[in-house]
């Protein structure tokens, strides 16, 4: 029998520079948060999937899933680590979906964890730059920020936007993150804050990039045997995953992400929901231009129109995006991010505190990618009622 995967619970730590905590400590804290949020569920996972991008480099740890399961006092469980660069989190959630749907697992704990701030900033940037094709782009020291800057210039020129036009995104992300208990950056930006923000790679400034921060988030995906029934039950209704040529400048169009489009369409086609029922999206905005390109690649708006179509209440053509603050302000602990994103959609569908001001939402999705659309993953959630 094919099982319907349910998100039974979510927990996380606030993303920050947690100098006092290791990746194991962070994972333990995120599970404590899950247990305190969902007091009446029996977790009893038979499987643990850890998503983490750089445990070898940042924590000098291989086989991290096994070590983590041990410290979480889970014995006799299946352990796996999933790594797909900064999209590891949603890749792991997609694997959990598959294990439940196949009937192999009845309850899978997905832990996304990343210890990012263990070294000085230039070393963190070096580790992050490994998402580029190392032998060629990495050889010249091309950072993800420099690549994003080149794509921003192409995008701005093609569609006639100024830097000030694009600045709307970080401004709104900072504003909405102030109410998110898990967000790293909880201060508002002013209309002109960018003027004092250092340029990382022209035209992009520090305000256009996610902050370096440590984090861990976890969800339990179950076949329904473990579920918090006090509020709405949330199912994973569809998943998608797609890849592209890694280097955007080798693709025919560098500022439209086919992998994002394809993974989005797969998840929607798989789910028993109509496209217009999807009213909430958490998207991957590691750099300002990627937020706009992701919205266009998912078809929320026509190409080039996202900057002018995005409203101040963070809706675009009637769909809410990134009320969490996104990677930009909630934070982006690499391999943990996709799990945070699923948690945000889960909380939005349940109408939890931060999401009470918006109309009830039936279906929503998370989109998580590695680099500028080199690989993209989508997880679509809906209420069961």
């Amino acid at each position: 029998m094919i099982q319907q995967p349910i998100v039974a619970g979510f927990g996380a730590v606030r993303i920050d520079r947690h100098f006092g905590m290791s990746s194991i400590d962070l994972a333990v804290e995120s599970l404590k948060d899950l247990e305190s949020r969902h007091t009446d569920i029996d977790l009893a996972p038979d499987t643990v999937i850890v998503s983490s991008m750089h445990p070898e480099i940042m924590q000098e740890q291989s086989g991290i899933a096994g070590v983590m399961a041990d410290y979480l006092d889970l014995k006799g469980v299946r352990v796996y680590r999933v790594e797909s660069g900064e999209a590891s989190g949603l890749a792991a959630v997609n694997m959990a979906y598959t294990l439940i749907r196949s009937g192999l697992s009845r309850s899978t704990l997905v832990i996304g964890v990343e210890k990012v701030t263990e070294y000085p900033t230039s070393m963190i940037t070096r580790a992050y730059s490994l998402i580029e094709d190392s032998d060629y782009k990495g050889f010249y020291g091309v950072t993800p920020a420099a690549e994003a800057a080149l794509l921003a210039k192409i995008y701005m020129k093609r569609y006639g936007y100024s830097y000030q036009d694009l600045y709307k995104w970080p401004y709104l992300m900072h504003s909405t993150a102030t109410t998110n208990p898990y967000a790293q950056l909880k201060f508002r930006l002013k209309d002109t804050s960018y003027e004092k923000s250092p340029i990382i790679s022209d035209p992009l400034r520090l305000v256009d990039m996610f902050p370096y921060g440590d984090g861990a988030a976890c969800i339990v995906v179950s076949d329904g045997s473990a579920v918090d029934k006090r509020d709405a039950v949330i199912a994973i209704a569809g998943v998608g995953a797609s890849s592209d040529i890694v280097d955007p400048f080798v693709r025919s169009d560098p500022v439209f992400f086919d992998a994002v489009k394809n993974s989005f369409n797969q998840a929607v086609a798989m789910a028993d929901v109509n496209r217009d029922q999807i009213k909430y999206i958490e998207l991957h905005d590691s750099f300002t231009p990627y937020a706009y390109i992701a919205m266009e690649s998912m078809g929320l708006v026509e190409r080039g129109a996202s900057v002018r179509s995005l409203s101040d209440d963070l809706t675009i053509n009637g769909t809410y995006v990134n009320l969490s603050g996104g990677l930009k302000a909630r934070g982006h602990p690499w391999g943990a991010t996709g799990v945070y994103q699923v948690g945000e959609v889960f909380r939005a569908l349940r109408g939890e505190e931060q999401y009470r001001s918006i109309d009830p939402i039936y279906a929503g999705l998370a989109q998580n990618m590695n680099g500028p659309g080199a690989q993209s993953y989508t997880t679509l959630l809906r209420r069961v009622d």
Partner: protein
Amino acid sequence: MFKDSVPKYWRLRDVVYRLKYIYCRDCGKSSFPPRSKCPYCGSSNIDHRYSKGNGVVEEYTVMYQSEARYQDYQPIVFGVIRLDEGFRIVAPIVDVDPNSVEEGMRVEATLRRVRVDGSTGLIQYGIKFRPSRR
């Protein structure tokens, strides 16, 4: 961890010193870095060729915050360069004031120091681009 490797750059010598690329005999497109199949049409009917190193700047950025090994070279101008053979590469542009780089500027390849590994003392060279002198 994080040390430069001698065998690696010996292996990559044709690419990082001579701009080896592939030309697809089926669809006529060129691409870089070299691979076993054409990224545009999937054909294995490809030639390995070497670029003459002349091209044009399509887009550029000036980077001020580099990763650990490149901080001596900051700010670095990175260009999206379209070589005359038809493929693109993202590479540093040197011997030029960052303020005077512009799109459409003709550039040529030049062999330069790319980085020094402080722990092993290895010096890596590679192709960068400078304003064309022709």
